[in-house]
């Protein structure tokens, strides 16, 4: 395995509620090298919270705690908010599910990409402009000059997501966290967006955390997969061997998927065992 970019040990995300504290993430450990790491789970399993916690995007009164959360040996939890700003977007970027809510609706796309680039590099307008156009070309946008002048509402969902990716990669981060980047897209556009992420991750040697609820997608796209349930990791496996997974939860999820090539009269229904939530988290450290 290559060098470790991110090292997380015993990560916990806690929210105070009227009924006492609620732990959304309960002691998750994993490392990320220059690889494609998938995190799968159902809604409420804590997968998105894990992604957000890495960038410390959990708002108070929510709390992020960990025994260790290091990016290339730097302690992310000890950083000031000011220093975190330099990490976010520059060293570690995040692409969210729906481009409609991530792009500023009243700002031209070109301006938005240039703003990020200039904020993090201090480059001039013309250099930033060149870089933005180049980045839009890299995500296969046909007419980048026109898109630079356009507003987000003039773009389709697939284009919006590609613009988001361009924006997040313009600063050449070392880690990309993609939270359900293709769930809002049609299948054919989905493949296109994935191939762009795949190529960029490969070419630039980035580490990718790919958060998704789609098991088949993660199995075919990632190198290694963490399966989360109730805020913990229940199983870690090689993506190619996901279909040989042994944990009853993973088996249950796989069984509940309808399959085109293997008809069954009834779908398996997942029977949840309270013991799964109690079992200690499996470590995803390598």
């Amino acid at each position, binding site marked *: 395995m290559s060098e470790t970019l991110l090292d997380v040990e015993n990560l916990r995300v806690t929210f105070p509620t009227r009924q006492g504290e609620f732990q959304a993430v309960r002691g998750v450990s994993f490392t990320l090298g220059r690889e494609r790491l998938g995190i799968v789970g*159902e*809604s409420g399993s804590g997968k998105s919270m894990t992604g957000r916690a890495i960038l410390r995007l959990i708002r108070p009164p929510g709390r992020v705690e960990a025994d260790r959360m290091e990016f290339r040996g730097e302690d992310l939890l000890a950083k000031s908010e000011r220093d975190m700003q330099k990490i976010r977007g520059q060293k570690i970027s995040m692409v969210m599910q729906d481009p409609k809510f991530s792009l500023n609706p009243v700002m031209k796309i070109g301006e938005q990409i240039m703003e990020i680039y200039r904020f993090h590099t201090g480059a001039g307008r013309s250099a930033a402009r060149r870089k933005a156009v180049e980045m839009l070309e890299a995500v296969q946008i046909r007419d980048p000059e026109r898109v630079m002048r356009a507003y987000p509402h003039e773009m389709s*969902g697939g284009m919006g997501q590609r613009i988001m990716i361009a924006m997040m990669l313009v600063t050449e981060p070392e880690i990309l966290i993609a939270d359900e980047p293709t769930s809002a897209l*049609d*299948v*054919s*556009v*989905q*493949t*296109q967006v*994935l*191939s762009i992420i*795949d190529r960029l991750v490969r070419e630039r040697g980035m580490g990718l955390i790919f958060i998704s*609820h789609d*098991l*088949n*997608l993660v*199995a*075919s*796209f990632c190198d290694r997969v963490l399966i989360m349930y109730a805020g913990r990791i229940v199983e870690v496996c090689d993506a190619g061997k996901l279909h040989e997974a042994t944990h009853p939860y993973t088996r*249950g*999820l796989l069984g*509940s*998927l*309808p*399959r*085109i*090539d293997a*008809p*069954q009269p*009834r*779908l*398996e*229904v*997942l029977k949840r065992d309270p013991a799964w939530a109690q079992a200690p988290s499996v470590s995803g450290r390598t």
Partner: protein
Amino acid sequence: MSRVSVENLNVWFGDGADRVDAVKNATFEVPSGASFGLVGESGSGKSTILRAIMGLVTTWSGRMTVGAFELGKKRPKDFYKDVQMVFQDPYASLHPRHSVDQVLGETLSLHGFRDIDQRIMKLLDDVGLGPSFRFRYPHQLSGGQRQRVAIARALAPEPSVILLDEPTSALDVSVQAEVLNLLADLREEHKLTYIMVSHNLAVVAHMCDTTAVMQNGEIVELMSVADMRAMRPSHPYTKHLLDSSFGYKPDAAQSA
């Protein structure tokens, strides 16, 4: 005998230069008791066909019949009893301040039923929710439970045709399995005819006997479930959809 038949259906929105043809010349037939799928991408017109059958869009031409009803601009009350619809988002399709009891009770009384009390209990039982759910509000239910309430509401007037618009796409896969099983059981039990819209080919293959593949408002292929399982698409677009539904393939992405 066909339960639902659609012939040369055209649906458009807007006028003159702004006119958008959402559905072009769609023709298909659904036999009684069958389950028919409509797949395609967003904007391909699949939901619009359901809305046209339901009478939720007025600008259409062509010929549609449901059972004995020849559908016109105005439809008899019996039609709305016979045809019901379940929507995609269980969070948006239930009134947030109406309890399950009110949702079902209102539908039943609108359709002129008398024994509302017993019927509500029966409906809850049919969709696998116990009597304890009767006085809950939507925010006290999970996504899957809400969709069960929406299905119970659709069953209330004892319809013979149910139009399902992406009934499980907002749900987790394990909950999706429960809802799909429930729909299959209800079809068996109440001899229902389904028309189901989905973007997920695997879901449609599981539920439907025949599927129409739509692209840009046109039905490009009518496909039997056997052909789909054997991966025998005749239209290149169908092939593309089938390929993409098996996860990510680096080589497929290059040609797309």
